[in-house]
């Protein structure tokens, strides 16, 4: 079904991005500098409002898919947006975490300069991600992908007077561009094989491609290319440098949702666009599952060795991407088993965005108050910041999979889905990894919350309200999803079903 509502969230975000510098200038003239921050928060709220309108419209749509063609050209050539349940789930996550990061930045970024650029880039980052989620063809996908990438390169190296963001930003730029180029190369071959860039038309014709063996090469390129963006080991080496180097709200965005954009690309292209191809998917499932086990093991073991709070969280992100990739590999089976796998993976995408966003914001609040990132210097900082300590405890327990919180729900779901697909070995590897993950989060809690405070922390004060607010909202979400997971599980199931329902997707476009 065609609907103009598809365009509104993206349009809102782009317009807001353009308006931020102007509003900032107005704020300077009327001596009310915080106008810019207020505008940013309003912009994200407006985007969320348009998204919820779109959600209502999607509920009534036939087959649960909305499309919009840019006029002038039909689907095989023209640019088009397609929104299904998977897109709307991802878009809600992107905008929601963007809002939290924006609220957190109000106090966190106070002492930095160039804030008009900072908020513009935050908007373009979210625009890029929402655009990726809504793209219906490779052209759109590529443009929004690069919008996201370029914004995140600049945001990582935003504090340009220090050496760390510069070095990490350059490393991130080179590696991530390399990954994007591999995907673009694969796109050019897919274009050559099918004569179109539209997802639905590719899915229609990819089954009759000859010889199908070339598709293995293309899928390899796509896995490596998106794997760089999603930090799948062994392509994860940029992540533990880039994520800690960014300002804390941006770390939360990068770890929470930007790497999920890579996962979204993998899901969309492997499970939908290329899935009708006549190749042996069971082999690819095993290959992807091996990558996933490697990723989670590397991430967890490296996180055990860290003394820097943000590096620890960054390596933990690598490990969590491993769990999600395992669920995605189960999803590639298709059918009922695939729906279970993909749904559990999407639930974990949602939960991990909430939990890791929360933990990075907590780390930001602690660093802002104590002025150091070294865990040995931060011993017992929780005694000085009770609110932050409580929220940090919720986040850490949630991500290590302790029952009343949301992490347990999705990690358990992934384990069940993996067992359901008959991949008991990988389930065992994941279980071992969850235990390792629990151990370093306990270490984090022991150092930060349990031990008595060091004397260098006497002047540390509780984080201001505007920092505690987004952290509190995310912590509340952790508890709500943990205690009452049914609506979220249903949402994830719907998304997984609509992703794997390729015939409906082809028919509607």
């Amino acid at each position, binding site marked *: 079904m065609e609907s103009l509502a598809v365009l509104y969230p993206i349009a809102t975000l782009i317009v807001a991005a353009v308006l931020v510098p102007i509003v900032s200038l107005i704020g300077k003239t009327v001596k009310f500098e915080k106008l810019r921050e207020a505008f940013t928060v309003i912009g994200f709220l407006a985007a969320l409002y348009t998204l919820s309108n779109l959600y209502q419209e999607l509920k009534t749509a036939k087959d649960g898919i909305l499309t919009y063609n840019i006029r002038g050209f039909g689907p095989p050539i023209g640019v088009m947006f397609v929104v299904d349940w998977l897109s709307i789930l991802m878009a809600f996550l992107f905008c929601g975490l963007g809002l939290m990061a924006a609220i957190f930045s109000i106090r966190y970024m106070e002492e930095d300069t160039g804030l008009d650029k900072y908020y513009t880039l935050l908007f373009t980052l979210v625009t890029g991600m929402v655009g990726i989620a809504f793209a219906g063809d490779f052209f759109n996908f*590529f443009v929004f992908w690069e919008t996201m990438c370029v914004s995140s390169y600049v945001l990582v190296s935003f504090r340009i007077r220090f050496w760390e963001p510069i070095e990490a930003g350059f490393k991130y*730029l080179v590696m991530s561009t390399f990954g994007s180029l591999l995907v673009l190369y694969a796109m050019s071959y897919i*274009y050559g094989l099918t004569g179109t860039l539209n997802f639905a038309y590719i899915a229609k014709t990819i089954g009759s491609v000859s010889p199908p063996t070339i598709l293995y090469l293309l899928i390899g390129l796509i896995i490596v290319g998106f794997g760089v963006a999603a930090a799948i080991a062994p392509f994860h080496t940029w992540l533990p440098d880039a994520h800690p180097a960014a300002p804390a709200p941006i770390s939360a965005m990068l770890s929470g949702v930007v790497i999920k954009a890579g996962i979204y690309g993998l899901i969309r292209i492997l499970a939908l666009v290329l899935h009708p191809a006549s190749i042996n998917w069971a082999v690819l499932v095993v290959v992807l599952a091996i990558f996933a086990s490697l990723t989670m093991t590397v991430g967890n073991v490296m996180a055990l060795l860290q003394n820097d709070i943000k590096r620890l969280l960054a390596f933990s992100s690598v490990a969590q991407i491993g769990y999600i990739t395992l669920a995605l590999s189960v999803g590639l089976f298709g059918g009922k088993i695939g729906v279970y796998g993909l749904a559990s993976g999407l639930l974990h995408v949602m939960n991990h965005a909430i939990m890791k966003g929360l933990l990075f914001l907590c780390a930001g609040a602690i660093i802002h108050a104590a002025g150091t990132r070294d865990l040995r210097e931060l011993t017992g900082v929780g005694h000085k910041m009770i609110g932050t300590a409580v929220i940090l405890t919720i986040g850490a327990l949630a991500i290590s999979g302790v029952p009343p919180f949301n992490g347990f729900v999705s990690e358990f779901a992934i384990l069940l889905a993996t067992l359901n697909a008959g991949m008991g070995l990988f389930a065992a590897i994941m279980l071992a990894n969850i235990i390792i993950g629990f151990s370093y989060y306990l270490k984090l809690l022991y150092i930060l919350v349990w031990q008595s405070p060091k004397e260098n922390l006497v002047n540390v004060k509780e984080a201001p309200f505007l920092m505690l607010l987004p952290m509190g909202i995310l912590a509340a979400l952790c508890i709500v999803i943990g205690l009452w997971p049914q609506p979220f599980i249903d949402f994830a199931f719907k998304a997984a079903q609509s992703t794997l329902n390729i015939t409906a997707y082809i028919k509607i476009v």
Partner: protein
Amino acid sequence: MTLNVSLYMVAAIILFFIGVYCVVSKRNALKTVIGIEIMTTAIHLNFIALSLANPPVGVVDSLAQSIVIMSMVVGAAIATLALMLIIRIYGHYKTVDLKKVSRLRW
């Protein structure tokens, strides 16, 4: 005068691997950026060559041209950003040798 499309594709593969070699093995940060640009160019060549191969024969598909133009714009943005970062790297480290710009690696 029509050259076979596969010749262009082979040329694109060779160019791509020259670019990969450049990114992976060169120590100079500027040469890394040049390597990325060579890879981008190889992909553009591949796109344009494949647009000739697709039916209907004789008509050039405008889709490939538009994505190549878009990709050029993106490539320019990334190159600009990379060069800006290299200037900053030089300011902090007094060198653009990537083996020496490695305080984060361990």
